[in-house]
């Protein structure tokens, strides 16, 4: 029986299948290759936006009164001069070798400049994810099991409104309520000396984490509820009940395994959203991460920093998607076997 291609598998071209083989390794190889291609295209977009489009990037950065010597030095640093292709390939090869250049604003090496910020952002994101996603799974599961109950109705509407409130609105409301005006129990900014590990400043992390949790958990819960309801209403769950299986078996053996793949995908999607969320949240709380660094870099036209951060963010997104796709296929026999 040739079942139609499973939606998780996406239609791989016949070429891709022949070139990279069948089965899971072939699938992973195709996904990674496509990820690299996406990153390559992303790098073109980034380079075009920061170094080509504005015309003379060096003059745009240094302003009208720049000396010719300063302009030449900057052009050299940004790998400008020569044809667009030469500029791009030079830039890319430096980047690929880990040479991210020197920040124009801080005169620091970009990789040193970013290292502890990356650490800070990653910690904040993972903290928010570690709290937000389990919470979302619990909320989603309860709403789905108690579908159309009062809890379901109230939580669904509250979650929807919270999900679509802008992060900075949530952040500032939290600051006003818990940090400055109504109660003053938590620090309204999350600034601490650079180089300090973020886990030594958990109190400063409460508000930004809470903001991010409110930004992703409700939406994740709602999406999960929808996929769980679909599974719980399926014929095979009804059939399991008609076979006289205990409710525990019905839920854990028949419903949960089928809910895993959609759950993984929903979480991956919202994790990606979290990456965008830190830009605003870090700026509101003055938290030293890559999000606030990006905002400052754009304000200062600090091209090497912008390039590094945007590429990093895109790379994280691409990797995240590959991991999620492969994981979703591993937990879904139907998709897994259709790879063969």
């Amino acid at each position, binding site marked *: *029986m*040739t*079942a139609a291609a499973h939606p998780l598998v996406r239609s791989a071209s016949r070429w891709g299948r022949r070139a990279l083989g069948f089965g899971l390794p072939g699938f992973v190889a195709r996904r990674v290759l496509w990820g690299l291609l996406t990153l390559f295209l992303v790098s073109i977009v980034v380079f075009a936006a920061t170094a080509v489009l504005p015309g003379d990037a060096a003059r745009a950065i240094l302003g009208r009164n720049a000396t010719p010597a300063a302009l030449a030095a900057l052009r050299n640093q940004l790998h400008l001069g020569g044809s667009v292709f030469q500029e791009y390939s030079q830039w890319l090869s430096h980047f690929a070798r880990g040479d991210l250049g020197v920040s124009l604003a801080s005169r620091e090496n970009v990789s040193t400049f970013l290292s502890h910020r990356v650490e800070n952002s990653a910690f904040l994101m993972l903290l928010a994810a570690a709290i937000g996603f389990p919470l979302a799974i619990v909320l989603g599961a309860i709403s789905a099991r108690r579908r159309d109950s009062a809890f379901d109705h109230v939580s669904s509407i509250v979650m929807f409104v919270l999900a679509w409130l802008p992060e900075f609105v949530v952040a500032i409301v939290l600051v006003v309520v818990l940090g400055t005006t109504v109660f003053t129990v938590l620090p309204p900014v999350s600034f601490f000396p650079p180089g300090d590990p973020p886990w030594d400043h958990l109190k400063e992390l409460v508000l930004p984490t809470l903001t991010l949790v409110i930004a992703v958990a409700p939406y994740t819960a709602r999406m999960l509820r929808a996929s769980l309801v679909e599974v719980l*209403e*399926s*014929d*095979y769950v*009804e*059939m*399991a*009940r*008609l*076979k*006289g*299986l*205990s409710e525990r*078996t019905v839920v854990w*053996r*028949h419903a949960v*395994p*089928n809910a895993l793949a959609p759950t993984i995908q929903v979480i991956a999607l919202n994790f990606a959203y979290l990456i965008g969320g830190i830009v605003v949240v870090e700026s509101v709380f003055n938290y030293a991460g890559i999000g606030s660094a990006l905002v400052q870099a754009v304000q200062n036209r600090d091209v090497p920093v912008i390039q590094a951060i945007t590429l990093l963010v895109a790379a994280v997104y691409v990797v995240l998607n590959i991991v999620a796709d492969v994981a979703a296929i591993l937990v*879904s*026999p*139907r998709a897994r*076997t259709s790879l063969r």
Partner: protein
Amino acid sequence: MTVVEVSALRVEVAGQRADIVDDVAFSIDAGDVLGLVGESGSGKTTVGLAMLGHTRRGTKIAAGQVRFDGHDLLKMSPQQLRALRGKSVSYVPQDPSAALNPALRIGKQLQETLVAHGYGDSRREREARLGEMLEEVALTDDPSFLKRYPHQLSGGQQQRIALAMAFACRPRLIVLDEPTTGLDVTTQAHILETVRDLCATRRVAALYISHDLAVVANLANRVAVMYAGRIVELGPENALFNAPAHPYTRRLIEAIPDISGQHAVKGIAGSAPAPGHRPSGCFFAPRCSFAIDKCQLEFPSPANVSMGHAVRCHRHEDVRAATLLERSAATPWRAVDSKQALLEVHSVGAGYVNGPVVFDVNLSIQPQQCVALVGESGSGKTTLARCVAGIHRHATGQMALAGRPLPFDARRRDPDTRRRIQYVFQSPYTSLNPRKTVGRLVGQPLRLFFELTAREEYERVERALDRVALTSAVVDRYPHELSGGERQRVAIARALVADPALLICDEITSALDVSVQAAIVDLIGELQREMELGLLFVTHNLALIRTIAETVAVMSKGRIVEYGTVEEVFSSPQAPYTQSLLADTPSLGRTLAATDDLSEHT
């Protein structure tokens, strides 16, 4: 011994007073099969699920009893019900591809019923039982087979797994909900055989739900006919089919085409009322030719016509008196002999990305001739029909329309060629754009092929609707406001309005209920004669073509394996495939004739 007794069962739409089924009562003895027959929406499945104390979301059991072994199943606690389900009362679903868990290996799914009900003391005993179960349904218990996932099995194998699962704990009652729908006739014949054997040898009481009278006649001892949520007639299979006492049963029998005899099928006009829209008197009265004033006022209570044969009809005596099966013979017609074929298909092959499905097919249709193309699902018949219609482009070979070459791609045909070939699709639920009114749908070919004023266009639309027996009141309706039969009429009107020379009908009745199906076939036959159409009638239903076609091409695995006049093919089929197809098709006439013989001898 009575295994189950249902009385006064009423299931409602939750939160409303509207009933889905009401006043349902029957009993089934050990070893007996009760056939529950009805059209879609009549409440068959609702009754079937109530036998396990289960209701679908949004419905609730409002009254009645389901006594199993003397205990009312509907009063049991969830724990008691759970102990019963799958063990003493089991269920075979309509669509096993959806009812088997896609994430669990089939071995596991078979085992867990045994484990849940503590069947067998050891793993070895359960494995032995598993082997037995699989043998009973003619499947292997090879470990590599048990390791497969449901989607790695064919539809027939999936249904066998569901059967094995249902019989696993040796239940005393089994509910089979249209278990053969969607299977081809040969697989269906095997499944029915298995069900019959298992019920007889294990003394299981079975409720067999189906819309197919022939299948039920073949399998059941007794039959209950449901209409709009009520059992309108219940009796021994033989008595019920030979001397129906309810007008609905009578019309239903007339409506099914049968391969055993040549007769025109007669449809039932109108459609069954939905829950919440049911009239005050007899629900069938609006469609009934026997109806009198009393029928409009009072819902008839059950009356016994003979031993174990009850009916809900005020006029059952007159109905029984009226001779049944006074069927008019079908009127075959001959094509005009013409020097030039209307359509010629020459060594056409076609396929999809996965591979070819049609190989080297030759076919010709004379003007005004009806050629039936018969085959099971996957035989390539629809692909071939779509090639002719110009909507399947991955094809090789030649086609010609009235002597002129016919490209495969509709976009490369000239407008007049496109106009002359019209296509009616299988499902009127997908072939009409739900966002357009009937008037715009039927008018669409006119706007493409003719230059008409608004007034002329409206008149032609009206005429086309009139031809398919719809009033012009439907012009500003949307498809979802019409019944399935009405939608298919709209689709036919859309084809006719273009004034075609060749009409392709692709399984046009298979998405419709029997009573509606007959009316549509009637209509097509009539139109073909009146409008002098060449007709390519594609179907999987052998019985259907006897009443409409004169020439038949039987297709199997992408090739035409038999070609001849309907008479020849039915009386002396040459290809082994055609022979088995004819033998496996359930036939009401044949079953009744067989039981008559039997009763004469005893």
